[in-house]
């Protein structure tokens, strides 16, 4: 069973192969996405986060989930040496991890309902259960210079994936004297224990440039694949264990 909706102004899909899969259960995942969006969106004037940002409420009024997301933002800022900073400029903007947080929560919900064979996706970030016994879901990494082309295929089970980057027009921005693109990376894809961690680390690693690959390398349970501005692919050492052999 596969269901697609728009959530957080982005396309989302939930696929479940479990025999007891139902539209009701999959609908609950989208309902959860909408709840997370209404609570944490900085683009909605009436959201609790927007009210906090305008000083209309204090952290004392945060509920348990809001405290959790705040703590996660602080933790991520520490872990990424400030490259992921939800508190930049003295404000609070959890947008950088809300999508991954929502996907992880969706996966938890499905597991609690007895699902094992599922794939949840919001706009290219996702979390995979198993596809069938012992096999994973095949996820293609698109070429940031031509998003209709797949340049790597990985097989994922019980982990998350997220890509951060600048699609398609990157090569138009060049240093006029070297004729080389002005940014080191066009995109970086991170595979981590869940969608939340993949999202947090992909965002930070992209801002770091090629040093982002070293950052992911240091996390022994993560892997990354980057497309550099000069149109080459670079993988961390653990990426190979996820890779599906080329040109199947």
């Amino acid at each position, binding site marked *: 069973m596969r269901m697609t909706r728009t959530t957080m102004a982005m396309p989302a*899909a939930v*696929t479940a192969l479990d025999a007891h899969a139902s539209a009701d259960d999959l609908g609950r995942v989208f309902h959860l996405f909408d709840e997370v969006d209404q609570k944490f969106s900085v683009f909605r004037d009436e959201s609790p986060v927007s009210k906090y940002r305008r000083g209309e409420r204090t952290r004392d009024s945060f509920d348990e989930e809001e405290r959790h997301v705040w703590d996660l933002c602080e933790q991520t800022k520490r872990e990424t040496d400030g*490259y992921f*900073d*939800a508190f*930049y400029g003295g404000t609070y*903007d959890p*947008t*950088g991890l809300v999508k991954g947080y929502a996907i992880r929560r969706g996966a938890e919900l499905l597991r609690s309902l007895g699902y094992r064979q599922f*794939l949840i996706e919001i706009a*290219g970030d*996702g979390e995979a259960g198993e596809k069938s016994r012992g096999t994973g*879901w*095949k*996820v*293609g*990494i*698109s*070429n*940031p210079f031509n*998003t209709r082309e*797949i*340049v790597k295929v990985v097989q994922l089970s019980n982990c998350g994936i997220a*890509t*951060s*980057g*600048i*699609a*398609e*027009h*990157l090569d138009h*921005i060049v*240093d006029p*004297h*070297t004729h*080389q*693109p002005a*940014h*080191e990376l*066009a*995109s970086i*894809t991170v595979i981590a224990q869940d969608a939340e961690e993949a*999202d947090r680390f992909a*965002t930070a690693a992209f801002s*770091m*440039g*090629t*040093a982002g*690959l*070293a950052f992911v*390398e*240091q996390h022994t349970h993560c892997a990354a694949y980057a497309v*550099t501005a000069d149109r*080459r*692919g*670079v993988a*961390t050492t653990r990426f190979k264990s996820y890779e599906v052999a*080329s*040109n*199947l």
Partner: protein
Amino acid sequence: MKKYAQFTLVIVAFFLLVWIRQGESNSEHTVALSPQQASLVASAPPGNAIASPAAPPPSNPTPTPTPTAAAQTTTPTPTPAPKGQYRDGTYTGSVADAFYGNMQVQAVISGGRLTAVNILQYPNDNGTSRSINSQAIPILQSEALQAQSANIDMVSGASASSPAFQQSLQSALSQAS
């Protein structure tokens, strides 16, 4: 006996593979990750060494206007003279709407060249441009991009922030010219 033959074949195949991979890796580019690279520095490629101010001086002590034969072979296209250089300084681009949030970049011009692009605001993180202290610095090999078959369940890819990045950077560069 048959098992022994199979085992031998596997061992031979393994060493053959290792030997081939070593040959490949010698011809592959390597990406050395250094902390200095963390500030998104636009570096001159070896092929454009003639046009680059950072190019090593030619072995001939008297400067000659014609490129050396070795350099010619590595320069596939004629390189325009470095005219219209930017004014040195740090220029902050406009805040551009990147759909998921705001994009704002800063262009650093040094010696008339664009030497760094710092991301002040990125739609997903509001990331700063501070440098990172890399503890482990692995040498990772890069490879050419190769199209794969599309037999997949999902696509993970870069999102729609590119026009905003371009808009912000162009506004920073226009201040420098």
